[in-house]
């Protein structure tokens, strides 16, 4: 037996420990990733701890206290730091509870559409041929449909609610997952480690779930972050148009819709939820960009 073992081994040993710390450092060094992560983490905590953080009940109406301006106005008060809306509900509490709706819809939609799109894309990419033709046809059909229009039409037929919006968007936003999963799988299909597992007689589900999926997950996570942002914006759009989350739920889009009549004289009713929406979507996009930079091919080792 040739025990020809080279000294290279020793030098490559500590790269094990380095790998994780390198990931940690490149995360910190990537500013957009760090900022995005920070904002999303804090908004996540806000959403989770909403009952404890919100100063008032977000549904409690007080008509004697309508349209109180926020704290930076001369007439503002600390009882309602961000003022109240036209029904006298505390705006800060509604904003805090609205975080829950936005994050819930964003994440659940990304999960549903991710499941649909990844399944279709991986199957199309792996099998090619007729399977690919069918999936590509579905994909083209889907891309030909304007999302907002279809979602509006469907929501007006079924009736808008948080569940409807989530399911509708989940069933509509799978296209990017499918495109990315398909092309990434096509590249992996001929990889020699996939061939090796085929030659071993591995069952199909093993090849797809254990050999292919972990190696395309990086690209899919980037798509997922962008779809979360997309879904949050679409939910706000649908709620603004009255076909999404229904009142009195504190959806940010709904808050903007309810405030649009007061836009000229009490602009904060629109700017506050608008700014919240902007910050959340920006943070998610920053995170997505950062993840894409991290997962970009840096070397053969990644």
């Amino acid at each position, binding site marked *: 037996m040739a025990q020809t073992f080279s000294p290279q081994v020793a030098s490559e040993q500590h790269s094990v420990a380095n790998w994780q710390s390198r990931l940690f450092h490149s995360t910190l060094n990537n500013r957009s990733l760090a900022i995005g992560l920070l904002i999303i983490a804090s908004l996540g905590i806000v959403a989770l701890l909403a009952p404890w953080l919100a100063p008032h009940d977000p549904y409690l109406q007080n008509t004697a206290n309508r349209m109180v301006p926020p704290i930076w106005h001369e007439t503002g008060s600390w009882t309602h730091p961000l003022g109240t809306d036209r029904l006298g509900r505390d705006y800060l509490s509604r904003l805090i509870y609205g975080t829950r709706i936005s994050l819930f819809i964003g994440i659940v939609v990304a999960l549903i559409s991710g499941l649909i799109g990844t399944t279709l894309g991986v199957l199309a990419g792996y099998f090619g041929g007729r399977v690919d033709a069918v999936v590509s046809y579905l994909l083209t059909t889907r891309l030909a449909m304007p999302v907002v229009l279809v979602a509006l039409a469907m929501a007006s037929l079924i009736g808008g609610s948080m569940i409807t919006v989530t399911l509708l968007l989940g069933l509509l936003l799978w296209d990017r997952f499918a495109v990315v999963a398909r092309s990434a799988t096509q590249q992996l299909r001929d990889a020699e480690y996939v061939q090796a597992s*085929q030659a*071993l007689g591995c069952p199909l589900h093993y090849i797809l779930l254990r050999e292919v999926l972990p190696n395309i997950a990086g690209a899919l996570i980037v798509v997922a972050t962008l779809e979360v942002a997309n879904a949050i914006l679409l939910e706000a759009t649908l709620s603004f148009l009255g076909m999404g989350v229904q009142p009195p739920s504190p959806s940010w889009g709904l808050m903007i819709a309810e405030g649009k009549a007061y836009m000229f004289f009490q602009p904060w009713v629109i700017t506050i939820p608008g700014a919240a929406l902007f910050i959340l979507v920006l943070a998610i996009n920053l995170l997505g960009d950062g993840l894409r930079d991290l997962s970009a091919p840096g070397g053969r080792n990644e």
Partner: protein
Amino acid sequence: MSSAANPRDPLALELCALAKTFKLGGGMLHKSQTLKAVNDVSLRVPRGQVMGLVGESGCGKSTLAKMLLGLTKPSGGDVLINGKAIVNANQKALARHIQPIFQDPYSSLNPRQRIAQIVGLPLRIHAIGTPKEQALKVEEMLDMVGLPKRAAQQYPGQMSGGQRQRVAIARALIMRPDLVICDEPTSALDVSVQAQILNLLLDLKDEFGLTYLFISHDLAVVEHLADRLAVMYLGRIVEEGTREQIFNAPRHPYTQALLASALTPEPGLGVPDIGLGAGQPDPTQPPSGCAFHPRCPVAKPQCSQQSPALSAIAQGAAQATHQGSQARVACHFA
């Protein structure tokens, strides 16, 4: 596992008129072309020997390997392993007899799995032994290919090319197959590591009684390793014989050119002129007659009309009686 094979059958592998045709393109507007990647290949590989398969890139070597591994269905002909046809064999049953070692150790190991998982996969898929026995076997196998114990917990990304190729060898041999298809296992490695891997392959061959089909375009590697040699050109075998026959007395003009093309370590000699002229012809439109005639230095008019058959070379009686050493060549004038 090798005892499960029929030990009486002296041939580990036999190919009978094996062929693979691909259809290319073919949309609404243009006709599809056919590409005969492997064309009427017959080959017998005796047990315990190393059969070298050489030829230019694109001559069908890798397609042949894929058919043997059951990854591609042949368009025609038979593959017999230990005397049994594999055409309708179950992939799992096939996997126990034949395993691949691939060319590029950077793409042949899943970057997301630990070495222990990669090497133990065959045992898990075929449900051989308990998890504990599997772990022991993996450890033993890693030791046999010259990897330290701690390698089991590493990821492929933490290893050098030579180490990765050792892992690939361990994965191929852990089920003790009879036949190993080595598809250019050293061409992606540094020259200094190539020799180590080749010697490891030779050691393991003796230890496990393996038969290798060794695909390569590196003649020096083949000369070091192979007992017999088959030369492929455009999907066909043009010459076959023992290592000595091929290297000392090549009969086919293509084999002669191939041998002449080998670079020498002497500096300053430059790239040898092998007199083949034009590059390889388009395999979708192979030349008429002998596929090699447009590049052949000794082609005669007959060559562009008649395709020569691969036939045994007439030899002295003493050599012919020694079975298996018979050489074959496909040329009108060899």
